[in-house]
């Protein structure tokens, strides 16, 4: 994992640089009107103004980037946090108890194929136009991947470890806390990584439709004003935020799962 923090390997920059250079050349060639496909340099300029208010070319957004990012990040954090707590608790319960599995799982499995986006009408009626419908959608998007991975992690706990735990005098609660939960951690983190991706997708979707702030809102609003440079800057911002939050989860995972070091392929890379 330490290699994530190192930028000593130059080959990682080759593909992005080639794409940017090709795009810049294509935009400047005049094959498309520059307003429809702005060059990377134009995007960068708009982005810089959005962040630092350089010449005010992004008008009301100039210097406003950090607030838009914070608005979106807050929605992701809230929805993802609620999803994590609920999905892990419920996942452990379902994985551990046959009774709870039979009682709850069929209902959840029926809700799961419904795309979170299709909840938007209901979310707006229930929660109005503000943070809450976005948080609700993020929650829906992150909940199921975390839940399914937690269930899988609990169900595949080595039976012999439970025996060893019962042998040293553990009751049901201690077995869950000291054996089942730590043993399921690798699966839970896999679920968190899938979940954080869905979380960003759904924040942006919700902001386009049901919220009047955040990076997704800026993206959609700029589209109405034909400011494709800002649209692309917003897309890039979302990509960056998604990357950073995934990196954060990976760093936490590397710390929590350091006992796997050297026993798995991913562990051997650091």
């Amino acid at each position, binding site marked *: 994992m330490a290699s994530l923090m190192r930028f000593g390997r130059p080959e990682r920059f080759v593909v992005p640089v080639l794409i940017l250079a090709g795009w810049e050349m294509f935009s400047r060639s005049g094959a498309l009107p520059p307003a429809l496909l702005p060059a990377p340099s134009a995007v960068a300029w708009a982005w810089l103004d959005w962040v630092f208010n350089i010449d005010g070319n992004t008008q009301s957004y100039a210097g406003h980037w950090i607030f838009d990012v914070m608005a979106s990040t807050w929605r992701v954090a809230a929805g993802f946090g609620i999803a994590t707590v609920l999905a892990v608790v419920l996942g452990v319960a379902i994985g551990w108890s046959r009774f709870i599995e039979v009682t709850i799982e069929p209902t959840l499995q029926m809700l799961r194929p419904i795309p979170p986006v299709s909840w938007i009408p209901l979310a707006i009626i229930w929660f109005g136009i503000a943070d809450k419908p976005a948080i609700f959608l993020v929650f829906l998007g992150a909940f199921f991947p975390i839940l399914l991975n937690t269930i899988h992690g609990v169900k595949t706990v*080595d039976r012999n*470890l439970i*025996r*060893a735990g019962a042998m040293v*005098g553990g009751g049901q609660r201690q077995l869950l806390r000291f054996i089942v939960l730590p*043993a399921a951690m690798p699966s839970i983190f896999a679920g968190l990584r899938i979940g954080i991706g869905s979380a960003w997708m759904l924040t942006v979707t919700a902001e386009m439709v049901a919220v009047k702030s955040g990076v997704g809102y800026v993206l959609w609003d700029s589209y109405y004003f034909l400011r494709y440079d800002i649209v692309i800057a917003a897309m890039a911002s979302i990509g960056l935020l998604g990357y950073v939050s995934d990196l954060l989860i990976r760093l936490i995972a590397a710390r929590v799962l350091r006992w796997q070091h050297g026993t798995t392929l991913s562990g051997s890379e650091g």
Partner: protein
Amino acid sequence: MATIEISGVSKIFKDAMRKTDVTALTGVDVTVQRNEFLCLLGPSGCGKSTLLNMIAGFDKPSTGTVKVDGQVVEAPGSDRSVVFQQANLMPWLPVWENVAFHLKMRGAQKGERREKAQIYIDMVGLTGFENHFPAELSGGMNQRVGIARALLMNPGVILMDEPFGALDEQTRMEMQNELVRIWQHHKGTIVFVTHGIDEALTLGTHVAVMSARPGRIAEMIHLDLPRPRDITSPRFNDVKRHILDLLRPAGAAAAHS
């Protein structure tokens, strides 16, 4: 009062898929006195592990009773600790946390756990490896951690299910000597499952020779060979020959004579 009393125990496994019953054990009576070292010796499939699991409380007899210290065994308990065939350590905990896992379950503070763990880590010769994770240790070292974990519980009975089965010959002999040393120093009742005749004769004060299908005790042998035991001495070989005769299938024994 005997420490372990097994009377009239049989175990029938229902094979639901094939709709047949498999008799793993039948009519087993064994008593183990305090501080005895009993080896359950027999071929695979003779039910020796099943018998051990019933003493541990992982399995229940179909008929008969298993009593430890006069109490009928219903469930696993910290009065009987088990050393498994695979060490079964928690891979996410360092050595010392694994050794003191029993104390963690009982909610002991970190300082106390660390201090107690050190005593048993030293006893099994793992000083210096306290903060290693199980994946960083060899099979033999992991098994030592498992033994330290069992010893820390300070149980009346230690149950061992072929704990050295997965080790190479040299490590196994070393571990056997270590175990005898710890047992002599520590005192306690041990039931040790093995399919190795030499191993049983090196370790036990008693050897219960078992035969298969259905599993039962063929003979209970009391060993009073002096320690450390010389596996090449004539007396050792006399007992070994006797056990080999017991273990030989009936047909082969007839052909032999």
